[in-house]
């Protein structure tokens, strides 16, 4: 109910505000791309990071389930980033490790290590729209933001949580994306994505991601410590809470390799 009210309000707000940028023109597309490029460039040079996080899944009846995971990320300057996720709970999947290479122009690559059979399995590239461990996050929501992945259009200027924002429409270039488009609320002060709304293949609002509790690292890089993905259609939601985040942990690019997955701890 609340979710529906929120989404209804969002629709109304977007209809009301649509006036100023009613039609996508070259200028608004260019401005959209400009903002996306600046957003990416402000987030370059962070190197590597390591996080401990809790993922809380919640279904329509309010029942909750949680998963503990650790995430290591390695920045690739010329391409998409590399990420390694290790599950600590539930117990029967503890030690399962998930490696992904995000690419700017080619499809992402992903592998998974299953400790029960001590083997690494590749996950087909087109299956990136599926749910990440049963959560409301899809694979493609978890990979790094790369400018080349989308077409952009600045829809309007707005305020979000009292701050001035741009609302940018992103249309995925990849046919295998689960989305027809996404709307991203980017704040003008720091170029941070504050909220993202995802639209399904028939163009209906599907999910909304709210990013909160931003903290500054290395005096330059903002990271949300809490993000919640709410499914507007099913009433399910997933909250990702970062309990601990460190930078410059000393990992090397060579640690992000499928041959090393089975030793990932």
């Amino acid at each position, binding site marked *: 109910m609340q979710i529906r009210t929120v989404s209804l309000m969002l629709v109304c707000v977007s209809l009301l505000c649509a006036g100023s940028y009613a039609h996508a023109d070259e200028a608004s597309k260019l401005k959209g791309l400009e903002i996306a490029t600046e957003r990416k460039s402000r987030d370059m040079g962070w190197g590597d990071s390591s996080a401990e996080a809790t993922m809380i899944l919640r279904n329509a009846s309010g029942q909750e389930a949680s998963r503990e995971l650790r995430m290591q990320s390695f920045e690739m300057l010329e391409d998409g980033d590399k990420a390694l996720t290790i599950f600590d709970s539930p117990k029967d999947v503890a030690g399962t490790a998930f490696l992904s290479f995000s690419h700017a122009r080619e499809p992402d690559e992903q592998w998974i290590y299953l400790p029960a059979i001590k083997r690494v399995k590749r996950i087909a590239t087109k299956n990136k729209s599926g749910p990440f461990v049963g959560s409301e996050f899809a694979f493609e929501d978890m990979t790094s933001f790369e400018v080349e992945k989308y077409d952009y259009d600045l829809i309007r200027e707005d305020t979000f949580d009292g701050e001035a924002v741009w609302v940018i429409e992103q249309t995925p270039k990849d046919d295998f994306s689960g989305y027809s488009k996404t709307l991203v609320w980017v704040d003008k002060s720091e170029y941070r994505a504050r909220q993202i709304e995802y639209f399904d293949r028939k163009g209906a609002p599907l999910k909304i991601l709210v990013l909160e509790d931003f903290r500054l690292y290395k005096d330059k890089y903002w990271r949300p410590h809490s993000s919640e993905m709410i499914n507007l259609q*099913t009433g399910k939601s997933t909250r990702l809470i970062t309990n601990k985040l460190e930078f410059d942990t000393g990992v090397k690019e060579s640690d992000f390799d499928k041959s090393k997955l089975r030793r990932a701890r």
Partner: protein
Amino acid sequence: MLQHRPLLVLAGWTFFALLLGIGMSMLTFRGDYRVYFEDDNPQLLAFQNVQEVFSKSENVSFLVVPDSGNVFNADTFSLLIALTEGAWQTPMSSRAESLVNFQHTYAFDDDLIVEDLIEPSRMSQTDIERVKQVAMSLPEINNRLVASQGDAAVVEVTVNLPEGDHTLAVAEIAAYARELKAEMEAAHPGHTIYLSGVVMMNHAFAEEAQKDASTLVPLMFAIIAIAIVLMTRSAVASLATMIVVALSVVITMGAAGYAGLFLSTATVNVPTLVTTLAVADCMHLVVSIRQGMKQGMSLDEAIQFSLNINTKPVLITSITTAVGFLTLNFSEVPILADLGNLTALGVMLACALSLTLVPAFFRLCKVNLAGQTEQGNDFFAKLGQWVIVHYKMILPVSVLVLLISAYFVNKNELNDIVVKYFDQSSELRQAVDAQERLIGGMTNIDFVIDTQSVSGINSPDVLQDLEAFTHWLRTQPEVIHVFSMADTYKRLNKNMNNDDDSFYILPQTQEEAAQFLLLYEMSLTYGLDINNQIDIDKAATRVVATLQNLGSKEFTEFEQRAKRWFESLDTQATLSAASPPLMFAHIGEVNMRSMVNGALVALVLISAMLVFALKSWRLGVISLLPNLIPAGIGFGIWGVISGEINLALSVVLSMTLGIIVDDTVHFLSKYNVARAQNKSVEACVRYAFSTVGMALFTTTVVLASGFGVLTFSSFALNADMGLLTVIIIVAALIVDLLFLPAFLLWLDKANNQKEKSYAN
């Protein structure tokens, strides 16, 4: 005095009707099977819980039937591809599943490949053969997404209906589905597509209600108008009656609108019932006015005469009828209670309107009915004489008829198959029949196995129980398909072991099961997750069994059998069951029980009223017989011609009780009047026959034709209710004209003799 201001009466009622009539604009049709259930119905709650824990399962199902009798060909495949693509665009859809996007898994190069079963780019004969081989070998597909004979395929769309009233959403989805079906049939000649599923069923409920409103109501008005003209042979009388009817209906339905009620398959018949009962009231008044004028009274005298002798019986029968309808509140089905309350209101309005408006209208028009001939009274006088002569024969015959009826009453069986409420002319029913022919049935039941512990389902013991339960279900004769995670676990284990068939068994350890599932889950594409089969904690799993379209009794018996078998497993996990068909199966039984109570209450109340009205304990008790016997005969005849009792028939008992009392009241009160004058039993019977015989016959014809209109409904709940009511009303007339006088003759003659012997 109002009686001298007829125009004021007319204007007053018209103003009142206009005022309340505005409420009619608030009435809407509701297309939602949930109108049959209270919000706290336990089966509804169970089903809602399943939908919240897992994904929703409300669906639209496209059944694609190629004329060739074989779906495994390039043309049908391209239809299925286009249809699946189109199905994703269904408003409010969250999932579309078919042979095309079935997430086929296999091992390749030591990797797990998860992909659509049919790829548009691979449509060679070899590819088609491969698809066929996979489809027929996998229990997840065979007889779910494709018929086991390969002669039909299914595209299943799951939708998320909004909270509250579904009507608009359902109409939008149904319109889209029909458009898509038409488009596909046009693009691929040689294919027929049938639409079914919960959404289409919901929509059919609204459509049936609308159909009844647009066809039955005008038909009923036509029939009633003809009946009135034929029987009164007076334009003024007909007009007066029609005004009473119109105002009763407008005020009742307006009040319904103000009360926030809505039109459903049940309440849409309120105008028909109110009209019928209003006409019966008017008939009594008109017939007496004419009698009076024929005896030489002036119009005013005749009106006064008619009011004198009719006010009480009309009031009493209106109250008893209202009480009968009010006991529908005992029903577990909210819309049947609505039907009862609205009709009760309408009946009382019709009573007030006929007692005030008919006299007013006659005064206003200064009509003279004296010249008109009245036929039939001779016939009833002769009939009375015949009964007096033959009563010793009538009684044993009546007892025999009653015994035979009682025997056949037992042939009736509770049987609610919701999809069979719709007759063959409805789109849904045709789809259901096609589905039954090709796949075997569509009654689904969701079993939930709950371990109450995180990752509980992955434990080898629980998996074994799940597999055993799945297997047990498959061995049951009424089961045509079982959709179970057990098959997925086995398939994954085989895939992870290089597609070695000997590994088509459950994973051996909890870790294997959990991690295979995790890998599989991560490999699925958009919208095709397994949250519809397993909950977020992996603590519970849903097993969907599809059954033949069983009656409610067999269906609830199956549910119990399944639960008993699961309990015998000696497992920590619990089993629960839920689904819309199960809801209907249960409500049929519960409703029957509560309606029997309702009928008993109605019987007690109505009999008490008769004791009061007839001012005689004895006649009150005697009236029980002619009030009950018609229902016995009616249900006996029903046992012969159908034998299937559904939701609506369970309410007929208390509903008809109030109506048939009308005959008894009129007959007994006239008989009583004559007895008070110390006439002989024979004379009393003769008197009753000649004064009310015609009136009883007339009202019975009107009532029977009014309820008879319902039998034209293509919605079985309405048609069956109409037919059984007609049978009972006609039986009531026969009982009141044959059995009741014969019984009185026998009883009172015996008493007379006793009195005489005492006197001696």
